[in-house]
């Protein structure tokens, strides 16, 4: 499945096994998006959070 990048309009491929909450990256502009919802034929993206100072283990 493909989805248009909200930043630059390029196509972002959404892997078949991707789940809600996963991050996808636009191959053209490098923008990160979180999969907000996913159904059989429809996927919604929202801008992903940027890496926080407290991210990690």
């Amino acid at each position, binding site marked *: 499945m493909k989805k248009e990048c909200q930043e630059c309009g390029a196509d972002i491929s959404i892997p078949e096994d991707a*789940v809600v909450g996963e991050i996808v990256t636009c191959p053209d502009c490098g923008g990160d998006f979180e999969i907000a919802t996913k159904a059989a034929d429809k996927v919604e993206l929202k801008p992903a959070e940027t890496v926080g100072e407290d991210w990690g283990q």
Partner: protein
Amino acid sequence: MAEVCIIYDKVRFEEKALYDKALEKGVKAQMVDAKGITVSTESKKSDFSLGDVIMQRSVSHYRGLYLTACLEFLDFPVINTFSTAEICGNKLVTSLALAKNNIPTPKTQLAFSAETAIEMIRKTGLPLVLKPIVGSWGRGVFPLRDEETANMIVEMREENDSPLARIYYVQEMIDRPPRDVRCIVVGEQVVTAIYRYSGEGEWRTNVARGGKAELAPVTKELEDLALRAAKAVGGGIVGVDLMEDKARGLVVHEVNNTVEFRGAASVSVNDIPGAMIDYAVGIAKK
């Protein structure tokens, strides 16, 4: 059958592996976005459908920590507990917990102003390692090899806006091979141990920094030390990091709360997410 709830704010390899493993084991599981949860002091456990046991997997330390406080307020069992997460999330508190429990750990000195930090560094002599007390993936960890750089880094920290940057955590530099050991502890069990080798042009061994994983033998000494370190911070599912000090043998330098295991899973023969799910189900039954 117990239902496991995996709370995330960003789904990584680990969260997918846990969810898939639960389903494979026939354990009911759900994934819930931490960013979508709101709690009030008047909330009741019955207001939420979060299963019987919660695995807190938020990548943001503070989000995970304080959401865990709320979930424990609601009487949900959470892995890890607020207490374990709080200790592990702070290197200063972790070092104190390790030392208090007589677990071999690198000598760590603490100062609370730039002046005393510089004085402490000068008196001790270099090399040393300056680490932020809160932080992960090796961010802000500086090897201090000469006095000029050491003073400059302390000065930089002094100018930082964060009050935490002005707490100085200075550790001896351990003479070790170019690797450390990560033990994945689940309850009373060391599920796997790996060596983490520094990536090219890198001194830190974090897999997030390009470090490479290789299977390490779980010796009796390693197992004993990792379990004791896990217990010292309150137990649960943790990643115990150790270094092989050429002079003293194994020393524990860190215990990680929301342990990442992608590197370990790529080389381990043991079922890491499987052990975690079994542990969660066990907690739910208690």
